[in-house]
């Protein structure tokens, strides 16, 4: 899996990685300030080339044919899994199941493990910080099973309230689901503390939504302490429609299949079917091999930068944005202080609705997200219908913050801000 990364490792200045030229969409749109990477990231040429290379040199249905082209496709697919597992600190790469993304990974755990193990009277815990994808599947499961659905409250600055969490946990708790990083606020959650609390007080499975952590800092599943970790490729420079669920082997082996069909079976008789080994047991149908290859190229690209540098770059930008936005009168930033946040700034302006702000920023070539960020339970607790969110990634630099700030001022001008 070749990469053509042109990362300038030595000549960087402060928070400039100087890699914008690697991203065709950004090259094609020189005036664009893309600040919505928490929704989806742009793709480097290395990833697009890897997709094309797969289709031009290795395309066949993996695991099927006896002919060498199919064997080659199988190798591409297998090697991609091993590469991505290595990136995420998974020593047993068969425990990385390819999915469409985080949402499917979490639904897989709820639909398979939850279906088999949650009973009436059990309790399922999520947090008010969770994305709907790690909230609704558990809510639906609990309702279906007659289990109690419990939501952990937050501190006023948008962190998981560990004391509250501790009070929720007991020997009836079967699931504790939480996100590693909040997509809405950028809060980095203390996974080790949550794991320690949950292991002390429960026999629950611990399910971590990694959609916003895998792209942004080093993650090692083997030492994270959770039982399941789900992530999305498209938020980490990879293609849309591919992601993964990582689970502990003994759990995955004990779980019933999630979907059934081709590839996931061993033997099919008229009266019964036996299942294929991991990871295939959870990958029914023709796999998304090309996108797995694309995602492997993405993690290769990220490793070439170095995930520690990715993290420090984003934090530098986020801190700069925090300072400059914080100086704007009537602008309120949500979430904990920058040192406890990933590269996300979520805010409201006293006089301009986030949707209007996003539209006006669009006029300046600045892309931000405005809305509830698929976290309505959180928005309700913050008592806002929506916030504006700027999120940073490897290709951003200080000029994007300049454009954001001047766009906010322009919105003020249009709406005729009068200081209180």
């Amino acid at each position: 899996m070749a990469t053509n990364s042109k990362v300038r490792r030595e000549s960087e200045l402060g928070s400039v990685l100087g890699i914008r030229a690697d991203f065709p969409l950004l090259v094609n749109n020189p005036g664009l300030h893309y600040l919505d990477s928490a929704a989806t990231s742009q793709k480097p040429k290395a990833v697009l080339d890897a997709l094309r290379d797969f289709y031009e040199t290795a395309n066949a249905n993996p695991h099927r044919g006896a002919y060498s082209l199919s064997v080659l496709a199988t190798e591409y697919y297998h090697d991609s899994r091993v590469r991505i597992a290595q990136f995420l600190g998974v020593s047993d790469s068969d425990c990385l199941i390819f999915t469409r993304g985080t949402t499917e990974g979490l639904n897989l755990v709820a639909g398979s493990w939850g279906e088999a193990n949650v009973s009436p009277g059990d309790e399922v815990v999520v947090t008010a910080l969770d994305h709907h994808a790690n909230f609704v599947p558990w809510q639906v499961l609990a309702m279906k099973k007659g289990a109690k659905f419990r939501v952990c409250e937050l501190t006023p600055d948008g962190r998981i309230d560990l004391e509250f969490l501790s009070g929720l946990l007991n020997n009836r708790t079967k699931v504790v689901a939480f996100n590693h990083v909040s997509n809405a606020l950028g809060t980095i959650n203390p996974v080790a503390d949550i794991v320690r609390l949950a292991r002390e007080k429960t026999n629950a499975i611990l399910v971590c939504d990694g959609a916003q952590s895998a792209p942004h800092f080093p993650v090692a599943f083997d030492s994270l302490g959770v039982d399941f970790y789900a992530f999305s490729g498209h938020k980490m420079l990879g293609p849309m429609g591919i992601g993964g669920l990582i689970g502990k082997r003994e759990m995955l082996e004990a779980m019933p299949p999630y979907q059934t069909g081709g590839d996931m079976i061993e033997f099919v008789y008229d009266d019964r079917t036996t299942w294929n080994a991991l990871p295939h047991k959870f990958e029914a149908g023709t796999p998304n091999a090309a996108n797995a290859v694309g995602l492997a190229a993405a993690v290769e690209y990220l490793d070439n930068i170095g995930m520690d540098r990715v993290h420090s770059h984003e934090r530098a930008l986020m801190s700069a944005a925090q300072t400059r936005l914080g100086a704007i009168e009537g602008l309120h930033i949500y979430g904990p202080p920058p040192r406890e946040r990933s590269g996300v700034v979520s805010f409201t302006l006293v006089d301009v609705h986030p949707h209007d702000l996003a539209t006006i920023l669009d006029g300046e070539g600045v892309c931000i997200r405005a809305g509830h960020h698929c976290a309505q339970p959180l928005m309700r607790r913050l008592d806002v219908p929506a916030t504006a969110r700027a999120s940073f990634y490897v290709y951003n630099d200080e000029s994007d913050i300049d454009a954001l700030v001047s766009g906010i001022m322009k919105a003020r001008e249009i709406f005729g801000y009068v200081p209180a």
Partner: protein
Amino acid sequence: MSPPRTSAEIGALYQEMILDHYRRPRNKGNLDNADATVEMKNPLCGDEISLQVAFEGDCVCDLRFSGRGCSISQASASMMTQLVKGKSTEEIGLLRQQFRDLMLGNAPPADDARLGSLRALSGVARFPARVKCALLAWYALESALAERAPG
């Protein structure tokens, strides 16, 4: 990619008429003698509207709205209440269709005087992501009329 929005398009969207209705919404509040009350939300952006309507015969004799949302949704609600007050359900149905056509780009921009101040929203048609904001109040009105219809 569609080209980034131009300042002219942004200017056409945020006309003074819209900002005026946003800052000083007309018919905002509650109606004591409402015959129909409808609450509607745009789940995409969290805009909310509660619309209360009083009927007299076949006419909407009074209506009020409350809620929160962006300038487009709030201004559209404010202008709509002004426009439809005193009109028959049939007239309102026609206006609703005209406004919808305007928003979906099926009508020439704003040459129908019957839409009154709502023509100021014609710039929204160029912003597909915002069309739902402009239509939210009208969906609520449609629902209020339907609630009343069988009786």
